[in-house]
């Protein structure tokens, strides 16, 4: 994905079933939801090996909460494998999916949540079902559904997608709020760009975006220089690559032949 491409990470955390405030006490105004991400900037240099992003936050008591991390959306075209002559497995065509997020990490416990009123833009908080609902058209056939499952399995293997369950947290403070936290392991292969961490609350059959934070992943130093040159000055970059390769090959040849000469 190009730098600057829109990306949204929704690192969704913890569905927390909270205790109601005690009877007889005056009803406190709902707690304000917040999240904090650390680090908020990921520098991708030559020794970048991936980053663990820690998400921490609080949601009003009584909500089920999901932290969702989503990367930029786009079209993905894949080779589809099938049997030819009922014997040979090979590429038999392509399959394309629209609105596919580059990165999705979800940490949530929304099994008991009422999903009927969840608006499309918040469905990712539901985990795999939400991704499928976002990407596949309504009424997609079983074959397409199977291929999409295979694609998601590829993404999970690349550590670009993950779906985890979070433990419910207990409510504390006044007004009571549920503290949640999650860690998301972002692999070195995440594309540079802007990501968003969202806290989504589920309550009474609806969903609500409670808080968001941004994360920026950017190439720096030599990694930025090489990637930019490869993209913007292809021919010059190719010639330089050839010069480097022939130079290295020639030099090794000379060194090896010199080392073989009798003393």
């Amino acid at each position, binding site marked *: 994905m190009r730098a600057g491409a829109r990306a949204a990470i929704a690192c969704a955390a913890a569905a927390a079933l909270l205790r109601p405030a005690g009877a007889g006490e005056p009803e406190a105004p709902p707690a304000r939801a917040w999240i904090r991400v650390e680090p908020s900037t990921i520098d991708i240099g030559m020794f970048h090996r991936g980053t663990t992003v820690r998400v921490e936050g609080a949601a009003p008591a009584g909500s089920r909460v999901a932290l969702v991390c989503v990367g930029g959306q786009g079209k993905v075209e894949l080779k589809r494998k099938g049997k030819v002559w009922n014997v040979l497995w090979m590429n*038999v065509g392509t399959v394309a999916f629209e609105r596919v997020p580059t990165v999705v990490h979800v940490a949530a416990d929304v099994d008991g949540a009422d999903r009927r009123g969840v608006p499309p833009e918040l469905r990712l908080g539901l985990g795999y079902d939400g991704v499928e609902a976002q990407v596949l058209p309504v009424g997609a056939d079983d074959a397409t559904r199977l291929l999409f499952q295979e694609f998601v399995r590829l993404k999970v293997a690349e550590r670009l997608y993950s779906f985890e369950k979070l433990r419910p947290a207990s409510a504390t403070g006044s007004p009571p709020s549920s503290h949640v936290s999650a860690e998301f392991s972002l692999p070195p*292969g995440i594309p540079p760009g802007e990501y968003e961490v969202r806290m989504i609350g589920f309550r009474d059959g609806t969903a609500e975006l409670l808080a968001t934070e941004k994360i920026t992943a950017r190439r720096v130093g030599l*990694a930025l220089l090489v990637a930019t040159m490869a993209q913007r000055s292809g021919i010059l970059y190719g010639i330089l690559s*050839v010069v480097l390769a*022939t130079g290295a090959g020639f030099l090794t040849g000379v060194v090896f032949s010199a080392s073989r000469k009798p003393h």
Partner: protein
Amino acid sequence: MELSIYLPVAGNAVNVFVLLGLGGMVGLLSGLFGVGGGFLMTPLLIMIGVPPVVAAASDSNQIVAASTSGTYAHARAGSVDFKMGFLLFGGGIVGGTGGVYLIKFLRELGEADFFINVTYVLMLGSIGSYMFVESLEGLRGRRTAPVASSRPSVYARLLGALPWKTEFQRSGVTLSPVLPLLLGALVGVLAAVMGVGGGFIMVPVMVYLLRMPMHVVVGTSLFQVLFTCIHVTIMQSAVNHAVDVVLALLLLAGSVIGAQVGARMSRRLHADQLKILLAAVVLLVMVKMLLGLLLRPASLVAYGGGHV
């Protein structure tokens, strides 16, 4: 020990020692047999998480280094036929361009993948089997001397009919330059169809059809592979922006040394020993491809691009 490095164009981090090891292994094959090794390296790079297009393009760049190193070593030993190499390369450029258009045509028909896979298995299977049996007979001392025939073979008559006979001193053969041009073009078509440099097809062609001695074949093939891969590297950089120079440099750090060791070993081995080793490698790749066609893949979808 885990020492990872980020590959800016591939957009992923990989273990440095794995790349050095892969480069060394493929460089050894390159120096030993005169093949570029792309048919082995590209799938291995994809396996460690390099996108297919970047794997194929960057591999071409590292082959430039390995084949420069190997060609230099062979040239110093006097085992490169430059005249033959240029003719084969010239034919290869024409054939390669034709092959690219052939694949485009087949893609439009929706038959490209089938054609490529079948070509791969048939080519690897037939070349590997023939070389294996022939060199095994040579090693056992059972190779039969050619029987004098009153009627020359079709191939011999074709050779005789071609014009402008020229002596190729290094190779010790006299033949028309039209033949290496035609064979170079044929290998170019196959290389474009199969998505590889073509060294492992070129070597048997030089041995069996051009009748060149094995040690000159290895050096000359490397020389030809060098120019092919320079062409591919620049094209891939200009059109697909897919060459990762960091990846290529790490691979070539291993491969240039491997190529030197391979070139030394190739001079110590008997021609039949070299051929049987290459045949074994080719047959192993063919078996791997065949199993890939017969067994259910781990995933029913795959990212596009790169070699087959």
